[in-house]
């Protein structure tokens, strides 16, 4: 009974971890703006966490540079299951204007399963909120 309450309440308060893999800071700023009072994503119980070990949703930005690839995959493996990986912007999905470069390992879905992808360069904060709401639904399904 106690576990049921915990799993139910866990769905209502997913913790978010922001992973930057060589992003230009555009998507990062838009992601930070949804935590500000204007868009206030804490209405959905979301809280930004500093450690991947407590995260439920991982938001990946950046084109996955060769320097950050091993570290990024290490961090993603530290996130406990069930987790939802959200790719933000064009870079983690395809490499954007950097694709074909010797130092870019994009797309991200070569290495991990990406559940939700938000297009845009950078996406509008409203679009990120839509993506995170979708991620919460997927998290609910994964928890059963």
């Amino acid at each position, binding site marked *: 009974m106690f576990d049921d309450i915990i799993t139910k309440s866990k769905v209502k308060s997913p913790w978010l971890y922001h992973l930057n893999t060589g992003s230009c800071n555009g998507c990062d700023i838009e992601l930070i703006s949804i935590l500000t*009072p*204007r*868009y*206030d994503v804490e*209405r959905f119980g979301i809280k930004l966490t500093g450690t991947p070990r407590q995260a439920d949703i991982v938001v990946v930005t950046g084109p996955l540079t060769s320097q950050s690839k091993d570290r990024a995959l290490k961090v993603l493996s530290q996130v406990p299951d069930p987790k939802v990986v959200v790719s933000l912007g*064009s870079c983690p*999905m*395809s*490499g*954007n*204007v950097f*694709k074909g470069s010797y130092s870019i390992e994009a797309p991200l*879905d070569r290495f991990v399963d990406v*559940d*939700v*992808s*938000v*297009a*845009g*360069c950078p*996406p*509008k904060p*409203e*679009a990120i*909120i*839509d*993506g995170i*709401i*979708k991620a919460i639904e*997927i998290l609910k399904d994964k928890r059963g």
Partner: protein
Amino acid sequence: MKFPYAGNALKDFFSKPSTERYPKVKKEAPKGYRGKISYDPEKCIACGMCIRVCSPGAITMTKGEKNDEGQLIEMKFNLNSCTFCQMCADFCPRGAIKLTTQYSMIATDKNELVVSGSFIKKIPPKPTVKTVQQSKAKTEASGSK
């Protein structure tokens, strides 16, 4: 003693919160926002200018075999690698590409974010018999000289 922000503090007690209630209250993007690409295959002439100016190489054109009717041409705009710079729309001579104000582009599958369209490019009509005869006459005349 002074209370410099006492007026503001009192006002904020009765004012609404500044948070936008986004998913409940829908929000329009500002005019001129560069969002999802809309492509009109009726207007397209397959000149390939958009492919030339696209810096991330997000646009691809596939050409089919030539028939009597024409040639099937399919354009694909991959929004996964788009930078939304609007260069394709600016350079399109027929205005077939437009960037709409639709900003919400969420997908669980990557292929959902591909905008595509196809049309049949008509082959220019064959020259008439009269012109062929004229050209023959010209070649004979030049040969006799």
